[in-house]
């Protein structure tokens, strides 16, 4: 089993066969969800429950002069009104940048910022009460462009900002960039823009808060980071953490959009404390768009040098990041915009200079592939341009720049297992790359791109020496196991992953494992579902606990049978003697033997990250991960030169997840990632209309335009397994990495199809037509030959 089992409790015992790993599992919680049995947050009700609503700013930037809540309080059925002055402590998921309030204290910074919250007997009354509140504003100048925001004369937007509208600036340089560019045979230099996009999870954010007789505040929230929510609730409400219980019910999607505290949680909690009644607050779809925290718009200038045979010599990147009104994870985003480009290619020299600015728009934050999807788009497009210019096959050019396994990147990331070359080979073979590409006519094209992503971060968001993940595991007298974990299952299947590991180690069926998660009173702390950390980190913690209990059970059986413990295997709900397979005992009885010997069968497993695998420079810890995943995509597109519409025909997506503990779940992550990235390439844009005072350009799922069944192409998910010594059984992440390459792969396929470079997302028909027009003009002037022998249609 190679590297497997080096983590966990450190025992690398040789089990003869795997029992659960790699099987086509059904998820432990899917049937309850699909049959309408599982209760998501908005499906919970409590006796006497009130409904809360937040009154929101119609202005992009304004000072709050006065708030008159009396007309609202006069409405029958209104129980309480709170404003920013009731929650004056600023918060933020990153402890260095607490720069927002649940409700504006003195000002509002984007359309949709909260100014007051109401609790009433029902939703209709709460809505009427919000409308009755009178807010007097002094409107301030709005700033929608990050460059304008950074100009000295711009008004400061964020009330807690220390440096005007500069949210964060990072400049890091590794190696001799200027020398590398000067000595290059080819320098590709272009500007790219990645438009902002949002998560649009189908379940809107929702919270239910109540206070019991003992004064414990219980908060059920549709969050993906219960622990950070718990910390910030304690701070803002000025309550000791033990008086708050945070529970995450089944969650209806997140994608990074629920990975920090939001105004509704503080408001519902305070309204519950004030009224003594349970309080529920459900966002409308418009409020979800205003809460945002989606992908940052980035303007990127990339210069990349190559030798004549296609080897990279240097990369120089300069990026302006539009942050919106608050920091959110912006400090990390700014680092990630550069740091995560260090792999999968060997960069001899690299410099990035990234600046995040505050603007009077909904705050941007982490969306699936946080911070690194945008630079990946720019950089992979640069590689494709070089391949064309140098006459090298784009897959071959990527091969020539590969890293080695166990390499240190130029920015000192410690890469362990490295399946990138196999990812390239798999998509090359599966797509029939050479023959298919050569045969496609004008209008059809094939593109390739690669990427890497982290499997969690080596350092927690706040400084701590405590473990990143802990799991408690208990075996009971009916032959079953219960796992207690703080990990947030957001639909990605982390609860199933914990059941798989437990069942694998103890020889159980998945149905024998009950996974109890994300309840701060019942479960040990976990940091949450972000940065693709759960399989590696919580999986390792679970593996450690399960191995300890397996040792106790196998040992007890061995003593009864008077054989060495190494002869006892737990598999298929039995303990069996490996040398005398006729000798076997049901696990229920084996558990009894072990409990008789040890008392209650319970174990705690912990996992902490390696602290010696990061850059030695300031900021070198950010982007450092225990293990990196790798991905390669090939996309085929069909460009309609009459309408400018781009259709993705088919996608081949190979992803190195280390080891697929549950392959169908990994496939689902790959397919969902390709879908979400394709949407960002072609359809979606989170646009604020600056001509209309900063309102959202289309805050509905129809206007924002999520792809439907009809818009999504066939996706071939190809699992590549290069086990990593850091992961449980070698597993690495699969939830975010597979999103990255699809966007540049589509851009490169469009070039292959019709000879135009799209350097701004989304590749919508007007942009495609404009690019075709520009090419036609070049062809007419004799500066370009017809692409694939076909003249661009739109001559003149």
């Amino acid at each position, binding site marked *: 089993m190679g590297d497997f089992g080096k983590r966990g409790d450190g025992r690398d015992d040789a089990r003869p066969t795997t029992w659960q790993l790699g099987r086509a599992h059904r998820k432990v919680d899917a049937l309850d969800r*699909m*049959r309408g049995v*599982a209760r*998501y947050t908005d499906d919970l009700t409590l006796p006497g429950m009130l409904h809360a609503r937040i009154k929101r700013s119609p202005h992009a930037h304004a000072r709050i002069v006065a708030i008159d809540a009396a007309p609202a309080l006069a409405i029958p059925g209104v129980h309480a009104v709170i404003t920013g002055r009731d929650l004056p402590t600023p918060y933020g998921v990153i402890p260095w940048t607490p720069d927002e309030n649940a409700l504006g204290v003195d000002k509002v910074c984007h359309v949709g910022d909260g100014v007051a919250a109401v609790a009433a007997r029902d939703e209709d009354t709460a809505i009427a009460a919000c409308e009755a509140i009178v807010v007097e504003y002094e409107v301030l100048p709005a700033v929608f462009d990050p460059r304008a925001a950074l100009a000295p004369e711009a008004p400061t937007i964020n009330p807690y900002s220390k440096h005007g509208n500069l949210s964060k600036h990072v400049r890091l340089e590794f190696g001799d960039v200027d020398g590398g560019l000067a000595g290059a045979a080819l320098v590709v230099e272009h500007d790219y823009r990645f438009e902002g996009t949002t998560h649009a999870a189908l379940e809107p954010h929702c919270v239910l808060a109540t206070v019991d007789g003992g004064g414990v505040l219980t908060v059920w929230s549709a969050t993906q980071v219960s622990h950070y929510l718990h910390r910030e609730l304690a701070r803002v409400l000025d309550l000791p953490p033990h008086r708050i219980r945070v529970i995450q019910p089944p969650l209806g999607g997140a994608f990074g959009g629920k990975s920090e505290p939001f105004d509704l949680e503080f408001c519902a909690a305070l309204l519950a404390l004030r009224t003594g009644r349970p309080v529920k607050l459900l966002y409308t779809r418009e409020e979800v768009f205003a809460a945002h925290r989606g992908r940052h718009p980035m303007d990127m200038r990339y210069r990349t040098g190559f030798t004549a045979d296609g080897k990279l010599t240097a990369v120089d990147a300069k990026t302006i990041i539009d942050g919106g009104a608050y920091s959110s994870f912006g400090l990390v985003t700014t680092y990630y915009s550069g740091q995560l480009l260090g792999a999968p290619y060997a960069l001899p020299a690299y410099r990035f200079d990234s600046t995040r600015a505050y603007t009077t728009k909904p705050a941007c934050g982490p969306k699936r592939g946080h911070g690194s999807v945008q630079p990946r788009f720019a950089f992979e497009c640069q590689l494709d341009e070089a391949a064309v210019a140098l006459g090298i096959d784009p897959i071959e050019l990527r091969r020539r720049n590969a890293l080695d396994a166990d390499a240190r990147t130029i920015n000192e990331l410690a890469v362990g297992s490295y399946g990138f070359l196999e990812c390239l080979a798999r998509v090359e073979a599966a797509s029939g790359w050479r023959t298919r590409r050569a045969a496609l006519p004008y209008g059809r094209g094939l593109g390739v791109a690669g990427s890497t992503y982290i499997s969690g971060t080596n350092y927690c968001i706040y400084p701590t020496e405590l473990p990143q993940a802990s799991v408690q595991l208990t075996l009971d007298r009916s032959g079953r196991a219960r796992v207690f974990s703080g990990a947030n299952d957001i639909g990605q299947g982390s609860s199933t992953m914990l059941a798989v590991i437990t069942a694998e180690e103890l020889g159980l069926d998945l149905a024998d494992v009950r996974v109890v998660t994300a309840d701060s009173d019942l479960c040990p702390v976990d940091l949450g579902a972000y940065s693709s950390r759960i399989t590696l980190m919580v999986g390792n913690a679970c593996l450690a606990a399960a191995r300890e209990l397996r040792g106790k059970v196998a040992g007890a059986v061995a003593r009864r049978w008077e054989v060495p413990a190494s002869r006892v295997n737990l598999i298929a709900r039995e303990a069996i003697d490996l040398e005398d397979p006729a000798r076997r005992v049901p696990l229920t009885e084996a558990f009894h033997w072990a409990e008789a010997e040890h008392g209650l069968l319970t174990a705690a497993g912990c996992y902490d990250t390696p602290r010696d695998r990061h850059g030695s420079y300031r900021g070198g810890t950010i982007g450092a991960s225990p293990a990196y995943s790798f991905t390669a995509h090939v996309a085929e597109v069909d460009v309609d030169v009459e309408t400018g519409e781009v259709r993705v025909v088919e996608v081949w997506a190979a992803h190195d997840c280390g080891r697929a503990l549950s392959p*169908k779940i990994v496939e689902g992550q790959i397919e969902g990632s390709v879908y979400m990235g394709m949407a960002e390439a072609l359809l979606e844009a989170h646009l604020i209309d600056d001509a209309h005072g900063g309102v959202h350009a289309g805050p509905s799922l129809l206007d924002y335009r999520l792809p439907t069944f009809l818009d999504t192409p066939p996706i071939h998910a190809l699992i590549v397994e290069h086990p990593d010594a850091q992961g449980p059984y070698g597993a690495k992440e699969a939830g975010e990495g597979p999103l990255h390459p699809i966007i540049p792969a589509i851009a490169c396929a469009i070039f292959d199809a019709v000879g135009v470079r799209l350097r701004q997302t989304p590749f919508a028909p007007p942009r495609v037509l404009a690019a075709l027009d520009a090419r036609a003009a070049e062809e007419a002037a004799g500066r370009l030959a017809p692409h694939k022998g076909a003249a661009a249609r739109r001559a003149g």
Partner: protein
Amino acid sequence: MDDVVLLRFTLNDAPVEVAAPAHWTLLEVLRYRLDQIGTKQGCDKGDCGACTVQLDGRAVPSCLVLAATVQGRDVRTVEGLRGPALHPLFDALDGAVAAQCGFCTPGIVMAADALLRKVGRPVTAAEVAEGLAGNLCRCTGYQKIVEAVVAASERSEARRG
């Protein structure tokens, strides 16, 4: 706005009688008065399909149906597909791991069930994509859902044949 109407209709084969504000949608009545929590609210404006139910056998987004208009009619929610045997759609979707967060799945099941009844034979992937185009899923990329619905229709046919 405070007018209350008394609604009588059939819900999952049983008669129900419920009073609700006259301006409420079917979605609100189902969720707030009848605890049909499998019917989800994703957008409340007919964009996402998470609240899809069957009205007289036809799939409709319940957030766009004024509750007063279902007087005397036949409403089926995802709760109405529960029974002693696992419905073939649930089994196929579960087997294909076609639900990730699962928030859209009840609505998709109701739309798919209506589609399969209407077509009355094994469906093609293209028919599923067309028939479910009003239901959004943000997690899966749709592929495993299409595979599962096709498989369920084939299994149902095999059972009939």
